[in-house]
């Protein structure tokens, strides 16, 4: 079995989704922890110091390339799988309750992922792109990201889109977290039970934390 055969098989493609998915989850953990510094409520001092460490240091910037590679792989593979899977039925059922026993969000990973992608385009054009272009895409001086958050989240429609984006992410993770471990071969009951619980907990915490960020600015809780 050559590498090509492995990674173009249905199980191999799923493995790519699982590994990149876990990698993105690790990124979320870093992202949410760093952003939580806004709640120090010190006018953004702590947050901007953290953001500066990530943006002006060569190591996180190299990791950032890996993050993009992983994200792009996850998106392309995910959408290709979604389209391929949708093409496998041919004639649709006239009457269909065969989905019983599966959760709606487990059947909607492609749609939830697409919503996340749309959100990411807005999100990156709000923060990542202005900041990096200010740095000339090198390690140059950064913009005041805290102040940028404040102005961005003063508009209601932006806050609403962010809340919806984070909810999509939450449901994507509610299925994705535990599914990724099953894809990687964890079949033991005792691990699966614990991973499913951790997955639900993680999805809720990530969603609530990210939703509260734009809300905290919009509602004027942060100076």
């Amino acid at each position, binding site marked *: 079995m050559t590498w090509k055969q492995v990674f173009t098989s*249905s199980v191999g493609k799923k493995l790519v989704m699982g590994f990149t998915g876990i990698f993105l989850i690790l990124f979320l953990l870093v992202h949410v922890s760093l952003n939580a510094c806004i709640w120090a409520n010190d006018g953004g001092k702590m947050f901007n110091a953290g953001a500066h460490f990530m943006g002006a240091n060569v190591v996180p910037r190299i990791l950032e390339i890996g993050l993009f590679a992983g994200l792009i792989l996850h998106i392309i593979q995910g959408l290709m799988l979604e389209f391929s899977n949708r093409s496998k039925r041919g004639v649709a059922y*006239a009457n269909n309750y065969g989905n019983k*026993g599966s959760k709606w969000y*487990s059947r909607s990973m492609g749609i939830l992922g697409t919503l996340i992608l749309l959100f990411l385009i807005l999100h990156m054009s709000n923060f990542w792109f202005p900041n990096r272009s200010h740095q000339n895409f090198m390690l140059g001086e950064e913009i005041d990201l805290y102040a940028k958050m404040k102005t961005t989240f003063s508009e209601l429609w932006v806050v609403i889109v962010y809340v919806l984006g984070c909810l999509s992410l939450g449901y994507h993770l509610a299925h994705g977290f535990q*599914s990724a471990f099953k894809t990687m071969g964890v079949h033991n009951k005792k691990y699966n039970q614990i991973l499913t619980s951790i997955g639900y907990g993680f999805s809720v915490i990530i969603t609530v934390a990210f939703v509260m960020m734009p809300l905290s600015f919009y509602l004027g809780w942060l100076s």
Partner: protein
Amino acid sequence: MEHYNMNLTVKVWRQKNSKDKGGFVSYQVKDISSEMSFLEMIDVLNEKLIVEGGEPIAFDHDCREGICGQCSLYINGKPHGPWMANTTCQLHMRAFKDGDTIVVEPWRAGAFPVIKDLMVDRSAFDRIIQAGGYISVNTGNAVDGNSLPINKDHADASFAAAMCIGCGACVAACKNSSAMLFLSAKVSHLALLPQGEPERKSRVLNMVAQMDKEGFGACTNTGACEATCPKEISISNIARLNKEYLFSSLSSDK
């Protein structure tokens, strides 16, 4: 349980052959006993159709005792009908009441093309089995069964996986038309036993390759297969298949 008779409307998918477009036809059936099986109800309908000079409805069945995996049918939107852990041949008419309309469709999957009416071609499963669902045994006298020590937990899990009758309901229910529950049952059944050891790596790799070739979709762990399986094959077998695949592909020689 109280016995009763019922009159029903049965909406059946009729399709002359694999090329025909097909469509639903409604039939009235009268005086159906609640003690009949679902297939007996179709037998009664077919006899009526034959007497009237019509074409009887083609459907798959063999043992009619829930063990062969030949019966299929998507009944009122569910594979093998409304009962849990049940095959169509073991579905009884007491599941319905007088005046009901029952919609009957064939399994729908590109890899299971309709042959006629409610009959689909499930030979894709046979080819997946041929690709690796076997063990090598020397001919000669049968060896003493007790000479081969087998871990009890493994034996139990293997037997549970071996319950799969290859009916294809998992494919029919899955939104991706994925055959992973079926395949994982076959792979787990043999991977958990010492007899399956010699072909352990090549088996999983070849069977997955054949499954993909047949045009089934990829698994997204939704769990619809497990909920519909008449033999209650556990979805944890799919995770075991993934593990077998990962390790076999990493450690295979070529």
